[in-house]
């Protein structure tokens, strides 16, 4: 049995009258690529926002790598080792690619205002280390040649990669990617797939939301399907794909 990294049980989240998540439980194992799929509006992104502390769930439990993260604020979540990307790419647009990744190092560095002003040796060393690590990550995702470009001027594919590099800079144990392939062409999608496998093989667990079911089938070790805020299926891709409930959720019910 593989080790459980993330365990959430019975999560509920309501917005006014809308029950966005009802009683959702997920277990993600260390070292796997875990996919979360479902039609538009199924609650995938809400789930993500709950996982990363942007939304506080109404009920349920949420433990990660032995830490209780139920209703923890985002910076605590990140510190414990969950990092994320966004569906509609949220980079710091006017910062360079390199600076974006350096921001990702914030939580793993410690120089305070006094250190910054005095620029003592410890601060200078740390700053150098931050920059070195940022370069390393840009190389890792394959975009070091655009390090000094402003984020917004990058191509779509590069922006996606930069967002992943920035998330990796926080040294996550779990990397949560929200529709990373959205808007990509087939060849970009292929190389993104390779990157995700590389990240997994490097020891980081990957959680993936995707709309593109094709991509998920070939990539994920396990998949959960959300529909109307409920988990309707979970398992290995081959089984999930044939589940009638899943087909119905995607293609719609036939009109009798």
């Amino acid at each position, binding site marked *: 049995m593989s080790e459980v990294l993330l365990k959430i049980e019975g999560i509920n989240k309501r917005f006014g009258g809308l029950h966005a998540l009802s009683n959702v439980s997920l277990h993600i194992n260390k070292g796997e690529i875990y996919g979360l799929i479902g039609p538009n509006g199924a609650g995938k992104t809400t789930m993500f926002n709950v996982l990363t502390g942007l939304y506080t769930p109404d009920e349920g439990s949420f433990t990660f790598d032995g830490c209780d993260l139920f209703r923890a*604020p985002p910076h605590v979540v990140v510190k414990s080792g969950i990092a994320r990307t966004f569906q509609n790419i*949220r980079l710091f647009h006017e910062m360079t690619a390199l600076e974006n990744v350096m921001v990702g190092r914030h939580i793993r560095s410690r120089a305070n205002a006094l250190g910054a*002003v005095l620029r003592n040796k410890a601060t200078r060393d740390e700053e150098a280390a931050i920059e070195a690590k940022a370069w390393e990550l840009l190389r890792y995702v394959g975009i070091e040649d655009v390090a000094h470009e402003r984020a917004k001027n990058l191509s779509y594919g590069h922006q996606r990669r930069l967002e992943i590099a920035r998330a990796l800079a926080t040294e996550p144990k779990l990397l949560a990617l929200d529709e990373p392939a959205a808007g990509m062409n087939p060849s970009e999608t292929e190389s993104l797939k390779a990157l995700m496998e590389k990240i997994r093989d490097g020891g980081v667990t990957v959680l993936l939301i995707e709309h593109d079911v094709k991509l998920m089938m070939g990539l994920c070790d396990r998949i959960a399907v959300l529909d109307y805020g409920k988990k309707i299926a979970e398992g290995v891709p081959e089984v999930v794909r044939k589940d009638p409930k899943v087909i119905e959720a995607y293609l719609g019910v036939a009109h009798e």
Partner: protein
Amino acid sequence: MTMDTNKKLAVFIASAIVLAVLPFVVGSTLGNSWVRTIDFALLYVMLALGLNIVVGFAGLLDLGFIAFYAVGAYSFALLGSPHFDIHLPFYISIPLGAGLAAMFGLLLGTPVLKLKGDYLAIVTLGFGEIIRIFMNNLNAPVNITNGPQGINLIDPIQVGGVSLGKAIEVFGFNLNPVHMYYYVFLFLTVVVVIMVYRLQHSRIGRAWVAMREDSIAAAAMGLNIRNIKLLAFALGALSGGVAGGLFATFQGFISPESFGLLESIMILAMVVLGGMGHIPGVILGAVVLTIAPEILRDVIGPLQMKAFGKMLVDPENARMLLFGVAMVVMMLVRPEGMWPSKRRAAEFKDAKKG
């Protein structure tokens, strides 16, 4: 890295020389009142750089910044004047005042953390007014601030037994207080510039920009938004406090009148019209907005006399009118300011397109 080291060095030495002889050149050609204006320009540079941390770096609109200037000024005045007959030396009372201002920064920052944009602006404005109202009225039943009369005879800075408040002669040079204070202010301005520059190019400066650009993404990167905001408030207030202390000792007299809303708006205008977030731009904004009104004061009156043979518009009135018009026009045609950073200039260009 477009400029090579030699060129940089040359620019540095040249500006150092210019700054070193400036008060004497100006004093002997235009008169000492202009040296005084330059001294004020330096004070405003410090203030504007302080506000720039809050508005320019962290993106938090603060309309009550003058309150911290006031805290610094009153701290100095109360600790160095006949009012309580305490006479602490400046090297104690200025840091004390700055520290107190920083505390007020935290005091203001803590409750308003969650507020955004306009709401934050209004609350900070209200905070500034509350401070002013207290200064105006804390003369009874216990006289703390001496009310609207203000505090007089504030100690000048004493360095090694020499008071900067009186003219002295050194090697045949006649050193006026405005000259001596110039160097004190220049020194501290340089310190503040170095401080904000280093902050901007640090982990903390990056965090401010990240938060300003996208606070949700910044939170998702593990930035503790609350602490980062508070730090901006405290450090901005700190610079304001230093400038306030210097103002008090330089003037020798302070009253609540100097700390009104208009002053807050003036400093904000320096930051915005100069180029928010860009240190050289903010310095330029502060210098231009301190000196331009003085020039106008000298020009508007005589010009009207010449043109119309009488005063149509009172110069003070015309000056403020121009200031207001400049704010509006600037925002409409060049919202990024006179000398924006490349980053900001691009932001505004995109905003216009989109």
